[in-house]
């Protein structure tokens, strides 16, 4: 594939949901010409590897508001982008195994409810009504938000990809971003595997590889890629509506539109992208023990597929959105910690606004890249890094 031009107004690195949405918003706001480069194929990274969960239950007001905006965008998606993403608002159910966990969930509930969302606190019986066949005593209670839900990630990618392209965005697949050209202390171009392109703005939306790419641009960033595994079972008739998340071990699972149970569980992991996006025997057995322990009937269900993707983790659990103060023209849209798909419609508008030199409503202490440069520790942190 050869590039159509040798100069662009903006080059986005990463054709995942974050990068594509950013390019789409840029093109809509007259920020073209825009080029998106990705070294893989469409959906080869985490955007094509996630469990499709979209939730608004978070520990900070800033994130809850972004998530609520994203949910609205996904509700409109079918009309706006012409693809059916099967966004099913059948709730997220957080499970607590003990009173301490329930207390923590209740504080999340209070914040979420104060934002006007219909969050509920459930006791053990309430949980059992949502999760048919749950083992007795498996949960003391939980919280439930019915407007959270799940979607099918692929049509969302196709939809934004086609919309962006119809607005004139060029998407170059199989093209790797190798580094940034700097002139007079600011971005002047991007070095790619197909040669250099001139651009005053580079957006780093490389997901699990965004830390690698920032470092290629000479910027020290705290982003760390961690591999998270996931599996899918054979399809069954519907028996489970909400996405279920357990606080203690990070177990999460839902039953997809097609009837498969899809989910994962937290495992100790080695950081870095070197090991690739494979699977491990430890994950398969740990996940199976967690699922069968919670829902004994699932013992008689077959796993058909397991895979993995990278979370792009930051020390405080918040994404990084905004221009890097050390390198004008280098804009971050990364650090989503496994929740890029959930937040992309809301955050990408703001990344695009930043590129266009507009102010955003984001609290810099929570989201801006400069927060890591401040020697004083950040004040808040998001610990609900689950599902």
């Amino acid at each position, binding site marked *: 594939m050869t590039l159509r031009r040798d100069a662009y107004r903006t080059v986005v690195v990463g054709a995942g949901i974050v990068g594509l949405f950013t390019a789409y918003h840029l093109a809509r706001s007259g920020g073209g010409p825009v080029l998106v480069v990705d070294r893989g*194929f*469409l*959906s*080869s990274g985490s955007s*094509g590897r996630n469990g499709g969960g979209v939730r608004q239950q978070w520990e900070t007001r800033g994130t809850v508001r972004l998530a609520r905006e994203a949910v609205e965008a996904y*509700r409109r998606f*079918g*009309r706006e982008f*012409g*693809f*059916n993403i*099967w966004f*099913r*608002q059948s709730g997220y159910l957080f499970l607590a195994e003990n009173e301490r966990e329930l207390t923590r969930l209740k504080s999340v509930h209070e914040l979420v409810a104060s934002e006007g969302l219909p969050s509920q606190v459930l006791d053990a019986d309430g949980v059992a009504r949502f999760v048919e*066949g749950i083992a007795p005593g498996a949960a003391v209670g939980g919280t439930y938000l019915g407007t959270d839900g799940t979607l099918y990630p*692929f*049509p969302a990618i*196709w939809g934004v990809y*086609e919309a962006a392209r119809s607005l004139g965005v060029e998407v170059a697949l199989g093209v790797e971003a190798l580094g940034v050209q700097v002139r007079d202390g600011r971005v002047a171009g991007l070095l790619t595997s197909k040669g250099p392109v001139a651009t005053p703005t580079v957006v780093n939306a490389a997901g699990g590889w965004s830390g690698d790419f920032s470092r290629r641009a000479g910027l020290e960033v705290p982003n760390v890629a961690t591999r998270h595994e996931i599996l899918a*079972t*054979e*399809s*069954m*008739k*519907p*028996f489970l509506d909400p996405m279920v998340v357990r606080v203690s071990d990070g177990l999460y699972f839902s039953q997809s*539109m*097609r*009837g498969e149970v899809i989910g994962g569980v937290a495992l*100790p992991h*080695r950081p870095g992208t070197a090991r690739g996006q*494979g*699977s*491990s*025997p*430890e994950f*398969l*057995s*740990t*996940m*199976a*023990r967690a*699922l*069968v*322990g919670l*829902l*004994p*009937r*699932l*013992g*008689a*269900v*077959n*796993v*058909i*597929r*397991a*895979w993995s993707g990278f979370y792009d983790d930051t020390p405080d659990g918040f994404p990084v959105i905004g221009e890097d103060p050390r390198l004008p023209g280098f804009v971050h849209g990364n650090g989503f910690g496994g929740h890029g798909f959930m937040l992309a419609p809301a955050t990408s508008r703001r990344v695009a606004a930043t590129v266009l030199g507009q102010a955003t409503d984001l609290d810099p202490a929570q989201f801006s890249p400069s927060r890591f440069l401040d020697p004083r520790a950040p004040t808040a942190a998001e610990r609900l890094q689950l599902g």
Partner: protein
Amino acid sequence: MGEAGRRFSFRGRPRTAQEGETLLSALARDRIPLLHRSIQYHRPQGPLCGVGHCTGCLVRVNGRPNVRACRYEPAEGDIVTTENAWPSTNRDLLSAIGFLAPGGVDSLHGLRRPAFATPLFQRMVRRLAGTGAPPTDEAGRALLAPAVERSVDVVVIGAGASGRAVVAGLVKQGVRPLVLDRRLRPAPLPDSELLHATTAVFLPPPAESGNRPFTLLAFREPAQGVRLRARTVVVATGGYDTSLLFGGNDRPGVLTADGALSSVVPGRRPPFRRAVVVGGGSRAAEVLAACGDAVESVVAPTEIRPEVVRLANDHGVLLYPRSLLLRARGRRHVRAIDIRARGGGAGASLPCDAVILAHRRIPHAQLFFQAGATMEWRPDVAAYGPAVLSNGATSVPGLFAVGSAAGASEVAPPPELVAEAVAHGTRAEPSAHSPPAMDAPTELLGYYRELLRTRRHGGWVACACVDVLVSEVERANRAGYRGIEVIKRYSSLGTGVCQGRYCLPDTLLLLSLLEDRPPYEVGYITQRPPVVPTPLAALASLPPPPREGVVP
């Protein structure tokens, strides 16, 4: 056949299975009843493979969904029912979906409007999706069994002819391997320990250090977890017969040579009387040798080899070389197959009660992919196999390949050499054969080029597990999506129960023509674990591994 048998019920009617007989075989005494309907359009589907990979014989047993009748031996008192059909598989009103949407339901763009109806559409679609009802609690608990955990020197996976030859060679050298075999009742193996009914499902790349760097996950029917640590792994998993694109290719009665041969029981007539065998090579010859009296004709996409001609003459079988297969006729079972001579020749409709696909056999290569072995494109069959040296060594130290898992018989390493290399760590020597040229012609590609030009084929089934039609693959291509990985995600092809085993080989060729580039450039679906559907109970039975080597 003794009088004593195991009594079970099938759809409420009493049935009997003999000792050692599978459910499929017990149900197929005279003719296989209709067990399954396709997942979306509810077409009648029959057992294609007979060896536990396809969807065609999934039934519900004692409250457990998606049990493969070909991999299950009924127990006294079992209750067997069919799934995903209303009111029954024989008369399924849901097949109306297929008539209402002959071009396929477009779930990517359809059912978006009106917005207020979205939840209703979702409920409806969700109810229609899914094969069986979820299992009962009892079914889940009944499968829990203690796991097998072993640390061994050498594991041999597969006790077919090549696996047995390697085991014999090893025993001669004083090595006692542990042998896994997928068959429910393989012949006993003298001087070696044999875990039967055990399928290897996951072989990740070996650890960088340690005496036993390999961790192999397997499970033993029905759901016993097996975890082995080993120094050396010999893969002798053989190959499998692929499907072929034509109209009605998932109709009951269409089966692969694997399926046909597995249904041939000594002393009993096969469940077909007048079969059409597809293919003109050694596999077709094997089918004729096993059940030639029940075969009426041989139809080959390319030439028919002399050995097949000889066997055909012995059995009075008609030959149709260089023919296009167009369509299997018959609604609930194959009645005839329409063919036409290639190069614009005459057409014919051959009455038959089975179509046996024996035209293309490719290696079972998943374990090699998983372990990170260097793979080699095999242009003759348009598939990948492991790159092997003359002693069976792959690019992964300690991982060996033997038999048709390694390649066609001409290139497969001799079992004695493999045994010697495994026993003594003989240095790998350069392979006796040179690797095939990537761009050598694939004859089947020419076949498909001609077939797709001469026939309306949009309604043909490209992926029988998920019900993806050829027209949907073509639509994805027209929309500008390229490469098998993207087409898979765009169309859902290859994401069902067989994980692409039966749709990938033909779709690669189809895409090669649509994208106008060689099949190996179209890509390959990542071969993800597990190799076959694996019960969660089996994986859950494995105790947590020791924490060593895990960096939090």
